[in-house]
């Protein structure tokens, strides 16, 4: 395809199976996604294999994050105290509206009509760009991938490589148009140079920058940002005013804890021993960087998750996206099928919880429970366990409604549970099945169509008919203590 076809998806409008079905038709995106995730996975496996202490790092990282979450109020207030002492301003936002209000106010206070931004999913989560634009302020994304998304009026599909679903011909078309470069080549170097020139004048000129944060460091009152391109360093260093919006769960107790995450994060996220640039700073430092610094601590649904003992491990996430790269479901659909800022396995557990289970209820089912995500998670989030836990919540909530109680799924599952509690019932059901299936079994002994939701199976798969005799019947007839007598009566023996 020569023109970029954008997926300007709205969040939370379709359930996962519907969105997935649509995206499975998009072979260009699927090809891009599979290529990208295969490359990162391969690199990740190589650099992880180099470390003899990888499992020790995972365990330590998991314990540090779990500890920080268990004492989140303590560490957040410690961060606030130390950041303030270093000259920073700490703001608290319970929800998206408050975060947007605070940030807009700060930008307007400085009469800025443009702001430069470092990639932050947290700002996507609150819809910051739309809010700024509605108030006459132009936010300019400076990450190459986010720039691509912004120019394409698209949505991110992966939080480390947001434009993973786009290939370079599509990028070139966009840059040619938006940067007025009709003769632009499509080699990656050409595209990177175009971005460098386009953004350089903005870095040097624009006075207000907005960032996210990878980690909030409690004991120093500092923030750590990891990146590859240098746009982060530009936004953190050149402007007069820096505003960072960071989820409250991102806190770590001590600066030294970075010694764990600066090993596990780059290797998991981009398959590198270390990403090109990591920046840490505390508040403001005279003669070095922005002299006015604000951090907006965002709750937006995170704090209630801490109460759920089974699911609070979700908040350990350090946003490496290794689970996306490993997920066989994500490989097929890409990120837009999840219709939320956070896609893939972590998205499937984080999004519904942030929404208090009101949105994203189909996301916990967007998984075959294969466990590849848990295997690669650098902080050992047991995603399959949380998926099942959230499925339990969805089922219980549905069962509390009449419609849910009477749904085909619920009736079917209740009936199956009834059968599974008693072997006599189960055997009878098997016999009924053996007879009842006959109407569906074709001449070759296979079932090629089944009704209702079971048609999902037979769309693409045959089903061998149930054998005439179950194992338990065979055993009873041929092998059990009664069998010998029966067989002798038939003139056979089982010696």
């Amino acid at each position: 395809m020569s023109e970029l076809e954008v997926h300007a998806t709205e969040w939370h409008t379709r359930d996962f199976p519907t969105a997935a079905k649509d995206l499975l038709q998009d072979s260009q995106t699927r090809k891009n996604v599979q290529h990208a995730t295969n490359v990162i996975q391969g690199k990740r496996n190589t650099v992880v294999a180099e470390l003899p202490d990888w499992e020790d790092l995972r365990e330590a990282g998991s314990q540090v994050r779990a500890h920080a979450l268990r004492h989140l109020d303590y560490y957040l207030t410690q961060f606030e105290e130390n950041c303030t002492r270093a000259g920073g301003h700490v703001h608290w936002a319970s929800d998206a509206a408050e975060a947007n209000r605070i940030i807009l106010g700060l930008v307007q206070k400085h009469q800025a009509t443009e702001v430069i931004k470092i990639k932050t999913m947290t700002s996507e989560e609150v819809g910051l760009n739309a809010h700024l634009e509605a108030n006459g302020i132009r936010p300019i994304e400076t990450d190459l991938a986010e720039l691509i998304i912004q120019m394409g009026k698209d949505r991110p599909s992966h939080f480390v490589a947001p434009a993973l679903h786009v290939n370079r011909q599509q990028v070139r078309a966009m840059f040619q148009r938006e940067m007025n470069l009709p003769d632009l080549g499509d080699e990656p170097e050409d595209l990177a140079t175009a971005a460098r020139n386009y953004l350089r004048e903005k870095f040097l000129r624009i006075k207000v920058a907005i960032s996210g944060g990878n980690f909030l460091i409690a004991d120093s009152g500092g923030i750590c940002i990891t990146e590859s391109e240098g746009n982060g360093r530009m936004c953190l260093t050149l402007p007069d005013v820096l505003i960072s919006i960071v989820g409250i769960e991102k806190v770590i107790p001590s600066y030294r804890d970075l010694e764990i995450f600066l090993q596990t994060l780059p290797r998991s996220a981009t398959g590198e021993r270390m990403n090109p640039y990591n920046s840490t700073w505390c508040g403001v430092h005279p003669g070095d960087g922005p002299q006015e610094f604000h951090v907006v601590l965002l709750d937006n649904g995170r704090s209630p998750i801490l109460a759920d003992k089974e699911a609070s491990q979700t908040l350990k996430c350090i946003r490496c996206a290794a689970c996306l790269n490993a997920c066989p479901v994500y490989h097929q659909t890409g990120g837009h099928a999840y219709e939320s800022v956070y896609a893939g396995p972590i998205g499937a557990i984080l999004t519904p919880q942030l929404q208090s289970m009101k949105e994203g209820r189909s996301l916990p089912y967007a998984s075959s429970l294969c466990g590849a995500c848990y295997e690669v998670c650098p902080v050992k989030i047991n995603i399959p366990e949380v998926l099942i836990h959230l499925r339990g919540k969805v089922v219980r909530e549905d069962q509390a409604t009449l419609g849910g109680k009477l749904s085909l799924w619920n009736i079917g599952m209740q009936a199956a549970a009834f059968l599974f509690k008693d072997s006599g019932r189960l055997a009878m059901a098997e016999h009924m099945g053996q007879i009842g299936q006959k109407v569906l079994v074709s001449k070759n002994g296979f079932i090629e169509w089944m009704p209702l939701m079971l048609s999902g199976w037979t769309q693409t798969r045959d089903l061998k008919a149930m054998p005439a005799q179950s194992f338990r019947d065979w055993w009873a007839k041929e092998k059990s203590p009664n069998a010998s007598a029966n067989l002798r009566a038939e003139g056979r023996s089982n010696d």
Partner: protein
Amino acid sequence: MTETSHHRATILASIRLSLGTPQTADQIAAEYATIKRTYRRYGTMNHDELVDFFEDRLREYDAGVYRAELNAIASTISAILTKRGKHGLVMPSGIPKSWLPQAFDFEQIDDEDAYRIDRSEGVMTGCTVAIAETGSIVLQNAPGQGPRILSLVPDYHLCVVRAGQIVSQVPEAFDRLAGSSSLPTTFVSGPSATADIEMTRIKGVHGPRFLDVLIVNDATA
């Protein structure tokens, strides 16, 4: 201000409601101390091997790598700059005069004039610590390194690393950084790159595209 403090109170209350009975600072510190840290802190290479290893990692990033004895720093820098076709560099305060070869123009920058720095041919700095395993150089706002803008905006960075500043592992580097966590700090591991276009790592987006590292043998230091 009342609005923010209302949100602050709401968030903290919500967190405390979720977490249940709070613990004291001492109890929290005690629990923190029990975290299992069985990962490696130190490498097993001897120092010469370590420096060679660091050099290999830098070369993988297409950084230029040079070695010099303590008494040959200036002459080596002269050769490096000649090779790069540079006539001079900007630098922070705190660079030893003995490092500076005569025939070149070294301008000390004491402010953050971005446009002036952008016009320079490149920058020279020292560093705080370097990590061999990851090929990383750590820069801080300190004498000989300067503010962050200075090593960011120019297209060329010449970094002088004393061999004694090179450690093996990331945790070991953090031992050395323990006292300076409040300084603006940048870990540099190769020239800037992006992998956003079809996962091909492309060098040369925004930070310095060209990096030379001069490793000084300070075995006596």
